[in-house]
């Protein structure tokens, strides 16, 4: 092949609309959400490549998105799930409820950005790791390429959490998605997908999420406390008026 074509292909600005051979051999991990699996190129989260999740909010489904895949992976394979620089304390009973054994989880709390990056790359290239969840607010293109290389050297699931503003920056990740919460569930914006078209998925949890929360109409008044269920209140002004 000519040198000029190689240079062109090596340029990250050129979008490759086919699966790269190295990735195609890796089997993907089903995400557990039917809507999402239909849109992902290998019908699941690709292994051995960097996946970026962009969100500014906590609690909108950024972890629920990964939990079925992590549980499925942990149930079938041996290995550790490494969390680097998590913003809050991952809660062991909840992990257990989702089917991820707490003893499979390794928490790393680095003090500096450089250490967090190093620890993420280290975990990605270790053979005994099933998945890496890294919270890396600052990540330039060189660092993301370094992580992509580390991810490609192993076969773990590599998730990197970044703020929504990072969407404007270039990244070496082969899959990038932004989460946006709305009144009707959380929407996934798959804006970079290697091997498939970018698309949006509204309310990715769909009917699966209906199970976990009662509909407002089903909620009842609790007789013992007199606290109205499923009522809206504002934490700042409405609270004192609630009957105690």
């Amino acid at each position, binding site marked *: 092949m000519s040198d000029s074509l190689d240079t062109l292909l090596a340029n990250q600005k050129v979008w490759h609309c086919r699966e790269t051979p190295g990735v195609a051999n890796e089997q993907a991990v089903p995400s*557990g959400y039917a809507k999402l699996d239909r849109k992902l190129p290998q019908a699941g989260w690709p292994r051995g490549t960097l996946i970026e999740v962009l969100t500014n*909010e*906590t*609690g*909108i*489904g*950024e972890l*629920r998105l990964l939990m*079925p895949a992590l*549980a499925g992976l942990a149930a079938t394979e041996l*290995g*550790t799930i490494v969390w680097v620089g998590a913003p*809050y*304390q*991952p*809660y*062991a*009973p*909840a*992990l*257990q*409820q*989702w089917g991820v*054994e*707490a003893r499979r*989880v*390794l*928490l*790393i709390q680095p*003090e500096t950005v450089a*250490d967090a990056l*190093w*620890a993420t790359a*280290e*975990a990605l290239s*270790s053979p*005994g*790791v099933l998945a890496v969840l890294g919270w890396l607010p600052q990540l330039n293109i060189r660092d993301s390429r370094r992580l992509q290389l580390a991810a490609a050297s192993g076969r773990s699931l590599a998730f990197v959490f970044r703020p929504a503003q990072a969407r404007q920056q270039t990244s070496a990740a082969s899959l990038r998605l932004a989460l946006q*919460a709305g009144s009707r*569930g959380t929407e996934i914006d798959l804006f970079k997908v290697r091997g498939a078209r970018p698309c949006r998925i509204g309310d990715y949890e769909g009917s*699966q*999420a209906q*199970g*976990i*929360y*009662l509909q407002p109409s089903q*909620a009842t008044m*609790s007789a013992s*406390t007199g*606290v*109205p*269920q*499923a009522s*809206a*209140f*504002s*934490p*700042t002004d*409405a609270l004192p008026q609630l009957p*105690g």
Partner: protein
Amino acid sequence: MRSRRSFFRPWKPGESLPLPLEPVVPTPVPVKTTGKTPGRSPSPAKHRVLWLAAQFPALTWEAHQRDSVLPEFTALTQEVRGQHTVEACSMAAANAGVRTGMTMAAALALVPSLTLQVLRPEVVEEALQGIALLAERFTSQVVILPPNQVLLEVGASLRLFGSWQALATQFLDACRERGFNAQHAVATTPQAAEWLALSSPGTSAVDAEQLRQVLHDVSLCTLNWPLDTLQQFESMGVRTLGECRRLPRSGFARRFGPARLLLLDRAYGVMPDPRPTFRVPERFAAELELSDEIDRSDLLVEAATLLVERLSRFLRTRQWVAQEVELRFYPLLGPMSGFVIRPAEAGQSASHWIDLIQIRLERWRLPAPAIVVGLYSDRFEPASGDVARLRFENGPVPARQSRAYSTLVERLQARLGANAVRVVRAVADARPEYAMRSYPVGSPEPVLAVAGSSPWQCLGRYPSVNNVQLARPLWLRSIPMAFSALPDALGRICLQSEVERIESGWWDGRDMTRDYYHASTESGARVWVFRERGVAQPGWYLQGYFG
């Protein structure tokens, strides 16, 4: 014919073990010497076996005193069944009336200025090992008898020291110089020497006749036998070893067990008494002198590599792995510096150690250029290859993490520090804050309320309606946040579930009475909130996010 029949007599259950009723004295087998093997060395000259027992009555106190400077009035305490009692104390405290076995409160009532320190068994153990090392100067056969005795076979050393008295004096003086006071006894059997040092210090029994005479009057109370056994002897009118020996052997074995009979036989030298000999702990130390003072980490790694290769050879010949190594850098002037590397799993291979040293050196700031690099290790364990366990073996398979896992943990800990690499465990506790523990990898696992499997059951791939109430948030705020302190950006909150009331913890003073709800914020986040109960102005708090 008769002997054969008795040999084949079946042993019936319930019958006591067929023990020789008369002590069996091994008859010496004459050594046949043939002229055909002239090169064979003759059997070593038989020397008289003589055991010196040294008993250190105040070893606990002396060891602690040697280890650190203690105030005049000090007592060492130990926790026994939840109560702290005095185990040892200083002379001044003893004169004031403090005794072993006293409770802490009683001792403090006697001497209000008493300093209390927790007894450290490892200090005492180390002191006894030090004494054994000292004893190696006098004989090649030393036996340690915890907690506070040492046995020396001195018969073989008599020619060098002249007499056992001279040897004993030298040994006890050397001990006294190091702050350990001993009482001693000498006998032809180790068991007799052990008892005599306890019951009548200073006695010696250098032949069988003398041994019988001195042992005759040894009180049974000296022996470490259970109280009810001693009372049984007392009721039979038996108080000393001599009286004990006069009892019929078969009856003695039936009543008090064949093991005690054997013990007596060993003390009297009728039965052989093999003892495990103390072995000097091995230690690896290697130093490398550099041609020039260096502080560049890559050159230091090269120097360390040479040393690690020596360590690796040392370990390989002994089939050992090292639990930790210490690397030290000596400058031309000034104090030395260094660090200890303690990996998650003991290792043997050189590359393993070099890797860890390299990571550590990258972040290590050498105070001054080094001229000598040293590598030391004295904690080893036998190497165990990766052996697959047999399938049909019962019992839980030990939780052994894979090699890849421990390598990763070691590398992370080497750079980020042990505290930054943590594991989590779920605990059976209704209170959300206490339902989880998080601790550094490698630190001892905390005792969980429920041992074994985790108390938190898997709710399925996606929690269903039936167990909505029990679903826990993936993110927890270990300190709940009051809504009044939250930024307005959270907006209005909508309760989404029925109440889950948690009332627990009245027994440990951290009780909580709370009503928990699942809720959603205006921005679409799912949160776990609670309201306090039983207080005048119940507040709302944010406990976690459902992730």
